[in-house]
């Protein structure tokens, strides 16, 4: 599993939030307040919201709020909405977007996305 930023998910500070160092992130530019990231380790990961960045003499601290649910649940969610998004994209015609038929079933959307 790819981790956006390593962290000890038990490690909380006075804010009650998980903290880690920004410079440990693979892509520090991704770590911005409000961004949703995967934090932890390859063995223990969680989906987190970046709450804030705090500059300290030792480095920039990232505060993370662990979001409810397991990473696997988010993966399945992305799979579901990803299929639908691809289906929408495939219905674009001549630079415009066709009217979507809301009566399509989920499996129809998946078939459309795979076409």
């Amino acid at each position, binding site marked *: 599993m790819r981790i956006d930023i*390593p962290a*000890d*998910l*038990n*490690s*909380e*500070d*006075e804010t*009650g939030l998980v*903290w*880690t*160092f920004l410079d*440990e992130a693979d892509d520090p530019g991704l770590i911005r307040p409000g961004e949703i990231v995967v934090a932890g*380790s390859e*063995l*223990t990961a*969680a989906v987190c919201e970046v709450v804030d960045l705090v500059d*300290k*003499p*030792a*480095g920039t*601290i990232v505060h993370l709020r*662990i979001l*409810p*649910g*397991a*990473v*696997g*649940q988010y993966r399945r969610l992305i799979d579901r909405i990803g299929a639908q998004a691809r289906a929408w994209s495939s219905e674009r015609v001549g630079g415009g977007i066709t009217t979507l038929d809301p009566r399509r079933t989920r499996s129809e959307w998946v078939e459309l996305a795979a076409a």
Partner: protein
Amino acid sequence: MSEREDLADHVRSDERPPPDARLVLRCGPDTPSLVRSHAHRLNRLYVLHGDEVWGISVFVALDDVGPTIFADLLQTRLKGNSAVYTPTVRELVRAGFELLPTFRRPHFTVLMHSLDDAPRLHDALGELRTNPYAVD
């Protein structure tokens, strides 16, 4: 060293050391290498009474009722973790580690003498156990 904060400023001074029977909770799995890297991260940010400090974070089931009981912690803070370590305070102390009540309840820092303690602390965490309340 002066650039680092002192962890002593974040110790809950009114918190008595937890009784032996209390359980420690930490999400897993960990490896000695991960314990080492987590302990190093603490050392980057903090000193303890001006001296070097290394350690990792745990939650301790402090009460018989309320939000810090064992089952409640498993169902809330550790709900996203299918595997957890659950050593007792006694087991960690017997292995030579001190638990410092830091920041907000029920957070504690398990202190290490140096990064070389990482494999021993990893062993002291014991077996990885299934969190029956975890979501997949």
